[in-house]
């Protein structure tokens, strides 16, 4: 049974436990006899409650606010990178270390097979229980993590193996040690070098796309987002804490989340995500296998597409893709013009 972790999951969780209880009764001879005696058909009762649960889930998940999406993206039961790799790929051999001085458990990676061909899979890794969460530093990578990721990407490129990255991080580590070890340079260098990789790169945002920490392994030819994933320049809590528009109050993060337009649907509108993978009703954690199948199918299809493109064209297209991102316009009289609000993105190149 799933614990009711988010407020809007509570009514669903109540029905979950009711269904579980009914199923236990159905499996218990004595309880069955009692039910028969009372003229209750447990099977149809289960079906009735399941239908009710489905209906409630549809209502709840059709009306998620941007803040609810943030909560979903951070859901502690959500499948993580290694869950997806194990489900989608075979023969995964994890490769460790940045070959300088460390191995960062917040980023994992290694060779594996997808549909029988070798690929390099890399991603941020969060932990499931308290101990693992600390070990993985909550998915916040240090410079060593980014350097390991780049080493693996360049290794894959040398052997002409496509690269798949899984994005799920609140942010890059920002403490003293990270600063001393050059976190900014590590991220910047990864971003730059990813434009040189002569193999297809597919990026899948599976949970939190947390600013520079995400982007450090997220330059690719295709960007996929899971339905309840987010992608943001700043955590909504920090945004609310900084801006007077939100009273400089972290407690107003839900308003900041709405203003930041950080959902998968927005990323699609901004032409930053190419497609959104629908999640099982209630979120990927309610049926991790189905979520992985859906993501795996999309990755496979895109890989097939990308592999037919000659390397020079692939790199050219990758450059153009990022070159075109932005919302700007050209004005005639710079000194007098004032910006106008616009509800959509426009750029001559997009």
């Amino acid at each position, binding site marked *: 049974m799933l614990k009711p972790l988010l407020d809007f999951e509570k009514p669903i969780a109540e029905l979950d436990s009711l269904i579980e209880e009914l199923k236990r009764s159905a499996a218990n001879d004595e309880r069955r006899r009692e039910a028969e005696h009372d003229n209750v058909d447990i099977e149809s009762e289960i079906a009735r409650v399941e239908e009710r649960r489905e209906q409630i889930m549809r209502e709840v998940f059709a009306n998620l606010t941007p803040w609810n999406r943030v909560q979903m993206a951070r859901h502690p039961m959500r499948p993580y990178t290694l869950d997806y790799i194990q489900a989608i790929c075979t023969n995964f051999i994890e490769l460790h270390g940045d070959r300088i001085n460390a191995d960062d458990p917040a980023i994992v990676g290694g060779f594996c097979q997808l549909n029988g061909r070798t690929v390099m899979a890399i991603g941020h890794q969060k932990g499931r229980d308290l101990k693992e969460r600390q070990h993985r530093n909550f998915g916040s990578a240090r410079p060593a993590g980014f350097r390991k990721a780049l080493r693996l990407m360049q290794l894959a490129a040398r052997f002409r193996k496509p690269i798949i990255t899984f994005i799920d991080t609140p942010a*890059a*580590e*920002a*403490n*003293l040690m*990270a*600063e*001393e070890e*050059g*976190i*900014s340079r590590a*991220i*910047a*260098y990864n*971003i*730059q*070098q990813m*434009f040189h990789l002569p193999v297809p790169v597919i990026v899948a945002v599976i949970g939190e796309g947390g*600013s*520079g920490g995400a*982007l*450090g392994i997220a330059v690719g030819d295709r960007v996929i987002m899971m339905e309840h994933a987010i*992608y*943001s*320049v*700043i955590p909504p809590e*920090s945004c609310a804490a*900084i801006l007077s*528009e939100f009273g400089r109050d972290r407690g107003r993060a839900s308003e900041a989340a709405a*203003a*930041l*337009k*950080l959902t998968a649907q*927005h990323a699609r509108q*901004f032409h*930053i995500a190419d497609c959104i993978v629908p999640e099982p009703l209630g979120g990927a954690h309610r049926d991790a296998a189905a979520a992985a199948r859906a993501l795996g199918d999309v990755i496979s299809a895109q890989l097939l597409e990308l592999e037919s493109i000659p390397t020079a064209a692939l790199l050219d297209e*990758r*450059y153009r893709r*990022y*070159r075109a*991102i*932005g*919302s*700007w*316009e*050209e*004005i*005639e009289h*710079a*000194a007098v*013009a*004032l*910006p*106008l*609000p*616009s*509800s959509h*993105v*426009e*750029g001559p190149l997009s």
Partner: protein
Amino acid sequence: MAKSRWFSKPAGRNGTTVSNMPEGLWVKCPRCAEIHFAKDIERNLRICTKCDYHYRLHANERIALTVDDGSFNKIDDHVVSRDPLGFPGYPDKLARAMSSTGLTDAVVCGEATIDGRRCIVSAADFDFLGGSMGSAVGERLVRSMELSVEKRLPFVLFTANGGGARMFEGLLSLMQMAKTSAGLARMERAAVPYIVVLTDPTMAGVYASYASLGDIILAEPGALIGFAGRRVGNQDMGMKLPDDFQSSEFQFRCGMIDQIVHRRDIRNTLSTLLMLFAEEDANAQASA
């Protein structure tokens, strides 16, 4: 009103306000608290005559200090950011930044000569929304990089971007990190020199993208340079931070900067570097 004469300085500049004194005439050094006659500071390249504190420069002042007189040809300042998110307050903030700085966004780019050597120059202005990087900044920088490659001219860039990626443009501003780095990947492949001068302040998304990717990285002394603010990630853990945390000197010690260069020497250092790169370039072309 006689008083208005004193209020000639643009708003928001660091260290220029002295309470109970007419603004603009006097400045108080943010580091040593010495009160100076503003003209003395101006004459000293806006460096404190007592403690050597480097005041922030406006983009136009920076360019004037760096390039040969009359050599600067501004490019692309007609590229301006929109408000793609409909972010609360952003159009107002943009409009106010434009009127208070006289700029159209946080970087000024152009072609110029330094000691007669042609190059592309870009300078950021902290007073324009903290020098933060939105779509217009990204577009202007990439155009400058493309021009550098096309003309095979070195690109000299001064940062002053305390804001990092401009959050009012959301994910689009985050992606300017990738966009500018894409431009620099092209410069890297074309072997056109890219020289960065880090000035106060250089933070977050800017430091974690084009500011860290210079072939040569210089910094002015005492600048604030880092990934995330002091509070993020450190206070919670009770970590003791060095006094000079995230300063030029700290980053130099960590191996992130080639040289810390005093403001009065920057022009000469750039000139020498351009000469050294040009010599290499000439030899490469001669042997090709």
